[in-house]
């Protein structure tokens, strides 16, 4: 289980997260929603150690993460797919996946599992990552993170700018991960995607989780979406 306990963090003089607490368990999908600038991405970057918490604690299965460097947090089992994908453009698809495998000494069969999840990547193994389409790049970014066999996967707006068929594929992938026991924190702007894949939806406002509901209690017209997402 990943827990954030009264975490405060931000950039230089700007405090973005204020005493924020949340938790996500294995096999659970927590979707974070909120207006632009609410602090959704900062939550993910703080978990990854890219933004240092000023107070509070972050723990994975009881082990403190907030005292570790970013690469230590990744090795502890947190996979992060940031907004914009950030692939190694000059490396081939195969090399990008290998980098993911090597990071946590994972065997080649893990790559096979990823390629079964995203068969299109198999056709592009020797192609430089920068030449892939947007959807394929997103598949590769998620696939590379999965090569690390993370306990918790952080996805920052994975459906942004993708065509509907790709969005459906990403939803299926998140569902498949749920079944393997991976906990997922998903930052998402699309209400339909959030309702389709999340177990719980947390609404971020004022640097905190202002409300958190089981997704099954919400519908597309729920007041919470109007209050926090503006739809």
């Amino acid at each position, binding site marked *: 289980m990943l827990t954030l306990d009264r975490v405060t963090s931000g950039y230089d003089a700007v405090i973005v997260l204020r005493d924020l607490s949340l938790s996500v368990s294995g096999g659970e999908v927590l979707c974070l929603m909120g207006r632009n600038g609410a602090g959704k991405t900062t939550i993910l970057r703080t978990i990854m150690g*890219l933004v240092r918490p000023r107070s509070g604690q972050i723990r994975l299965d009881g082990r403190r993460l907030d005292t570790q460097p970013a*690469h230590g947090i990744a090795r502890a089992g947190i996979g992060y797919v940031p907004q914009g994908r950030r*692939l190694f453009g000059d490396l081939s698809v195969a090399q990008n996946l290998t980098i993911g495998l090597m990071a946590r000494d994972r065997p080649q069969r893990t790559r096979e599992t990823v390629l079964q999840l995203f068969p299109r990547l198999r056709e592009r193994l020797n192609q430089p990552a920068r030449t892939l389409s947007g959807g394929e790049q997103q598949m590769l970014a998620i696939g590379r993170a999965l090569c*690390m066999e993370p306990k918790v996967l952080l996805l920052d707006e994975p459906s942004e700018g993708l065509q509907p068929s790709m969005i459906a594929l990403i939803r299926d992938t998140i569902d498949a991960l749920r079944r393997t026991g991976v906990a997922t924190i998903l930052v998402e702007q699309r209400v339909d995607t959030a309702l389709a894949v999340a177990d719980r939806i947390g609404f971020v406002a004022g640097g905190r989780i202002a409300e958190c509901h089981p997704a099954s209690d919400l519908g597309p017209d729920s007041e919470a979406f109007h209050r926090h997402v503006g739809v």
Partner: protein
Amino acid sequence: MTARILWTHVGALAALLAAHVLLPAYHHGNLARIMVLAIYATGYNIAFGYTGLLSLGHALFFGAGLYAAGLTAYYTGLPGWLALLAGPVAGGAVALALGSFALRTAGVAFMIVTLMFAQAFHLAILYLGRWTRGDEGLVIARASRQLFGLDLADGSVRFLVAWALFALTMVAALIIARSGLGRVMVAMRENEERSRMLGYDPYMTKLIALGLSGAMSGLAGGAYALLFGYVGASLASVQYSILPLLYVLLGGAGTVLGPLIGTVAMFYLIDLASNVTDAHQLVTGAALVLLILFAPRGILGSIRDRFARWIP
């Protein structure tokens, strides 16, 4: 390793040997010097081309190898192989020592820190003129330039030893480039933050890369001292920090054969231009500007991009 990669590199080494047989004697000395400088550029390429570390202080590593080998040969009378070995050991050790704190900086700050230490080393050589003879330098006697019974002052021996050392360095670079470490180095160059998020320690990866780069640069310095019998402060000046950068940019950063191609091209460009005009640096500069405009990834880098993605 695929057959075409293997044969491309074997072919490059064979071409260098063939040049020794086919070209007039004037080129033999040139090619020996080119191969030693190509070892240096190959070392620089590990740091800059693969890992993205833009150093302006590699003359420190080249100079450390040059003086470690040169002073050993000049003063101690130890066997040539020990003097030669002192080069990469000194270059690697100095690179690790410098890297251990210079790598806490990045970008422009890293360039300035490396430049500053290389300049301090250059000044130290001048200051310690009693032993180094400063700018005037030391000429190493022929008797001290023996390697396993081979006379390094002999033109053919010098060529073949330079070739063997270049071959060794090139194979090492090829192995590194295709290894897991090589891929992580490239990942670091492409996106350091992303690499960290995948669990890689940027500091340690860069330190290893700089250590390897320093060892290769030190080998080049040691080879230069013993093959050409001269050790002088000018060889550790800032110019020798800029040269490998130009060789690598010209040949193709992040390619195994690019440093050799860049060194050959730059060496002969200067050689030919200086036969035509005293303003040969102007010609060289114009050629570099054209290269940056039309082939910013260097000669081999452009070929790789356009025709042969498989070139390592």
